[in-house]
């Protein structure tokens, strides 16, 4: 029985993307309570209890481990006994040449137990998961191995509730992005240009953006200019340019974005207030609440006084 959640066979999926493992776990709970069949979740790191919440049985690889170990142990004994007792007994240091040699066999039996268990485990793991060198990987999001946690629902599956309701549940649970029909793709076997042109990326354009706190907003020109003038009046003009990257939460790319809306110095960052933070978040689609959580204002204050 090969794992279907590694090879996705060109199915179509409804995918909710999360950036917080607690939200993902909660979403799994809610969906399963409603009787929705979840195909699988995809996370960049092991999320504890996720497999229990998805209703997966604990793997019986542990039993296999015991059997592999037993085979190893018996092989060690058979090897040593058949060579040193049956086939060609050697008299060394006056030691006996019968089953009492057993004590000398223990180290080899022990090592082979471990060797067989380890290799047996790893090969069974690969076999059970359908993993093999050179296989193409089926991804639903390029960042599922980086920082995105996905909840995937097979569109072909009969569900108790309809697809649009599933999508709205995902949105309510705090998914940063919900997509209706996602086809699996792979990165290492496709060139970047092909990827850009493929339907996968087209899908992303038609993303059903989730509502609520983490909504991605596109502003009209008027709205933009009103926010820009708000920033200008509160923060004042930049005198020179500081290395904003020193603030935790600002990377090189986001620094450029900030520069493009007229924020260049620590002094300006230190003057941020609730209104201006909101304006920045709306204009740059930055993670809502991050600026306050990371407390850029006092970080900037400290850096200013350095």
């Amino acid at each position, binding site marked *: 029985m090969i*794992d279907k*959640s*590694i090879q996705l066979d060109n199915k179509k999926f409804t995918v909710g993307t999360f950036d917080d493992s*607690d939200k993902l776990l909660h979403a799994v709970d809610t969906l399963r309570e409603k009787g929705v069949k979840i195909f*699988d*979740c*995809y*996370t*960049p*790191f*092991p*999320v504890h209890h*996720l*497999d229990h919440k998805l209703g997966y049985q*604990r*793997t019986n*690889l542990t039993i296999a*481990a015991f059997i592999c170990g037993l085979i190893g142990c018996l092989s060690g004994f058979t090897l*040593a006994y058949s*060579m*040193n007792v049956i*086939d*060609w007994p*050697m008299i*060394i240091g006056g030691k006996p040449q019968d089953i009492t040699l057993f004590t000398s*066999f223990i*180290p*080899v039996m*022990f*090592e*082979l137990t*471990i*060797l067989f*268990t*380890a*290799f047996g*485990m*790893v090969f069974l*793991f690969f076999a059970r*998961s359908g*993993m*093999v*060198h*050179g*296989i193409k*990987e*089926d*991804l639903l999001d*390029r*960042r*599922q*191995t*980086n*920082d995105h946690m996905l909840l995937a629902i097979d569109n072909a599956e009969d569900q108790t509730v309809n697809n649009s309701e599933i999508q709205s549940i995902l949105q309510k649970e705090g998914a940063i992005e919900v997509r209706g029909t996602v086809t699996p793709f792979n*990165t*290492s*076997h496709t060139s970047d240009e092909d990827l850009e042109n493929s339907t996968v990326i087209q899908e992303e354009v038609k993303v059903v953006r989730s509502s609520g706190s983490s909504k991605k907003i596109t502003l009209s020109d008027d709205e933009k200019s009103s926010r820009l003038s708000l920033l200008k009046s509160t923060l004042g003009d930049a005198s020179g340019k500081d290395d904003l990257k020193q603030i*935790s*939460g600002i990377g090189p790319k986001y620094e450029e974005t900030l520069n493009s809306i007229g924020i260049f110095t620590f002094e300006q960052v230190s003057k941020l207030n609730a209104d201006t933070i909101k304006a920045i978040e709306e204009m740059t689609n930055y993670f809502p609440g991050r600026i306050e959580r*990371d407390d850029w204002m006092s970080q900037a204050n400290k850096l200013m006084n350095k």
Partner: protein
Amino acid sequence: MYSADIRKPLVTGGKTYSDVTEDICRPIENKPTSSWWMGFIIAVILLLVLVVTLVWTVWEGIGTWNVNKSVMWGWDITNFVFWVGIGHAGTLISAILLLFRQKWRMSINRSAEAMTIFAVFCAAIFPLFHMGRVWLAYWALPLPNAFGSLWVNFNSPLLWDVFAISTYLSVSLVFWYLGLIPDIATVRDRAKTKARKFWYGLFAMGWNGSAKSWGRYEVVALILAGISTPLVLSVHTIVSMDFATSVIPGWHTTIFPPYFVAGAIFSGFGMVLTLLLIARYVMNYQDYITTEHLEAMTKVILLTGSIVGVAYITEFVIAAYSGYEYEQYAFANRMFGPYAWAYWTMMFCNLMAPQVFWSKWARTTPWFIFVISIIVNIGMWFERFVIIVTSLHRDFLPSSWVMYHATWVEAGIFLGTFGLFFTCFFLFAKFLPVINMSEVKTIIKDKE
């Protein structure tokens, strides 16, 4: 998220998941820095020294070494035990600390395991070349002998060593690779170049982080940790039996297995600290390998160093108490004989020096830890030298007493193995994620 407020966070700098990915993939995705090149070139030069001295050994014969009929094991077996011992910290960190649920292991286990594997490569060179005809090394395996039906001797600890070391190497390798798969997949999905896409795609084996695979993966990792723990203890136990099962005074003691295992962990942590202190400085990983990590490791050094110290003293007391004159002489000879300088170097480096770690300042000051870690490395090399050479050079028969000093070939091979070790390590630091990203991402919000 688990949180214990008396502890400091394990990852500092307020990192997000994608920050972790960015930071750790940076060396892989960018051109190597000039300090990388400098280190790598030095390592390759040392590696060439290894090649030259090994070729010379094979070409000219073991006579190029100063080992003789009394001291038949000299620097070669000293170095073998030294390198095998160094490997032990890697498995201890990734297996034993996993079983103990010590989360601080997560940002150091990858590099420590890599160190294990490279150290075992270095170790294997010595017994193989000491055989003289290295191309016949496969005779050590249980194969039917073409010159009669003679098999290997299962009574011999040297054969146990063949099984132990090869099991250790291969199990460490699969354990390491299993841990790498999710991270290789991360690099694959960020890859911009064709070559990177191909190679990381090949080794990621289609990993996509599905919850089903993760569930299985965690069980497999736990079982591997569970069996690696007795493995790591058994390996140095068996190495110690190479000595303990003989009748040579100074070797023939039952304290050897625990004493060797403690010494191995001690020396391994010494090397881990040396390497990580350099790596965290050069690669700017202070947020991942924090002073908390350093402090935890120095505590292990303090503990195992003290165990080793107690073992030295016990060994001496038992020799004195035994009333067995050969044993008593062996120890008197170690302390006051012609190799007394090596004995006292060992005592200073292993027994005294690590005791400074009772002080909090010493445990949290990187440059100072670095100095002590070097001292520990030196001390543990001398421990093996003292055990092997002082016991052999004066045994039961005074007419066969000799002195032993290494030749340039033996010294060159030892120096060269550092070249092999560091060449491997630099390549690893360039092509693979040095820190286990997927594990670190589970703890960036934790305090423990």
